[in-house]
């Protein structure tokens, strides 16, 4: 279980997170929605320790993330980055097996390669892709490789940062389906940040809306459309008029 208690983070005068409280139960798929620049990525990076919160606590199974042994803590996570964040200098299989070739999860090269090819197959890529470099792949294929890398070490928790950004609607649908299937199959806890409502409906068990530095609304996906919160309704229906100010 991931729990955020009164998490604050600012950059200079810009207070991005102003007391975020959120709980994600184990095995659940939580999707965080919110407009661009509302701090969704910052929130995710705070949990991973890529950014240090100014105040508040982040607990993982009751243990303070700030005090956890770093490598063991990170070994529990997998992450799909918005742009893929694949390492240009490494072949596709080396990207996927990166964690399996180094550190506490290291295993023999042949075994790591076999696992990488299996994970590539799981995300719908042929084995011959394994020896290509990321620059030789399309955007959709890079996302799939990123997804394969995120699940390669079978993490308990997987983060997805804007998984469908930059993809055409069909490829976005394919990625959404893959995420849903993989999360269910692995029994992993998932946290996705997105402003793509088709992703929300395909991936989420629960939804939380981040606005103005706090969680504006949270609840099961089934209740999202009928929830009375005007911020949430404006956002999910993409209305220009409402309590959320749109810069024109």
């Amino acid at each position, binding site marked *: 279980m991931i729990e955020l208690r009164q998490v604050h983070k600012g950059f200079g005068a810009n207070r991005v997170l102003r007391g975020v409280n959120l709980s994600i139960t184990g095995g659940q798929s939580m999707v965080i929605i919110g407009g661009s620049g509302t701090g969704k990525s910052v929130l995710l*990076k705070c949990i*991973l320790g890529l950014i240090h919160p100014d105040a508040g606590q982040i607990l993982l199974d009751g243990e303070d993330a700030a005090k956890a042994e770093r*490598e063991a803590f*990170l070994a529990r996570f997998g992450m799909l*980055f918005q*742009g893929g964040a694949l390492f240009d200098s490494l072949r596709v299989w080396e990207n996927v097996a*990166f964690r399996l070739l*180094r550190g506490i999860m290291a295993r023999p090269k042949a075994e790591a390669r076999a696992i990488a090819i299996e994970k590539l197959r799981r995300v719908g890529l042929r084995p011959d892709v394994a020896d290509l470099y990321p620059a030789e792949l399309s955007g959709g294929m890079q996302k799939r490789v990123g997804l394969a890398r995120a699940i390669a070490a079978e993490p308990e928790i997987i983060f997805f940062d804007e998984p469908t950004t930059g993809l055409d609607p069909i490829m976005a649908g394919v990625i959404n389906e893959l995420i849903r299937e993989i999360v269910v199959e692995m029994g992993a806890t998932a946290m996705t940040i997105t402003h793509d409502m088709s992703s929300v409906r395909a991936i989420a068990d629960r939804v939380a809306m981040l606005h103005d530095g706090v969680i504006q609304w949270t609840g099961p996906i089934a209740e999202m459309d009928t929830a009375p919160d005007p911020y949430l309704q404006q956002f999910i229906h993409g209305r220009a008029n409402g309590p959320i100010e749109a810069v024109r």
Partner: protein
Amino acid sequence: MALTSPLAPVAALGRVVLAALATLGRLVLFAAAVVGHIARPPFYPREFMQALVQIGWLSLPVVGLTALFTGGALALQIYSGGARFSAEAVVPSIVAIGMVRELGPVLGGLMVAARVASSIAAEIGTMKVTEQIDALVTLSTHPLKYLAVPRVLAATLAMPVLVAVGDSIGIMGGWLVGVNRLGFNSAGYLKNTVDFLEGWDVGSGLVKGAAFGFIVATLGCFHGMNSQRGAQGVGRATKSAVVAASVLILAANYLLTEVFFTS
């Protein structure tokens, strides 16, 4: 307003000085962290070998050509300068001493700074803006250890070898010009070169080379890792790495020369 405006330039200067000192402090801490990680596992031999090829092997042509032309030009200059007081015979020894003590390490360092500091800063800067460095962290890999340590170690070890090769080619450049353009006897030129050159002349240049290699790679990594967002941020990091590395090489060269040759 009237009271503050005369002080505004002083305040602006103060801000610039404070920012420069803060950057210097961060650079020193960064360099110390790199050195502190060199002997601590995990090690990345593959990344080290790749850096060795990139920094050492692939810099050979540019360092060799620079040394060749510099050695030739040095021979011509010393010959024409020496002719004013009938000291043309000193050409072989001055070319050799000039190359191994100063020009080999300094010009080699500057050429490697242009070639390597820029490429390291651009590569790491691009990794930073495309979240590859964040990805490294989430994959339980220390970015400094994985990216900076192999490059800094490779540059520190490769530069003395590059300097040694550059010194040899530079002396050969002087010999070529001396024999073919200035009428020196080939065997006599080489004998003069060997007779007047001392071990520490060569050794000091190699030590300088190691120091310059450390400076080049450290500044490339530092500016790359502190790159700002976007193409402009990476461009600025690349430019800053080359400028800072070049200036620091010249400053370090003066300090090392003071230490090595003025006692």
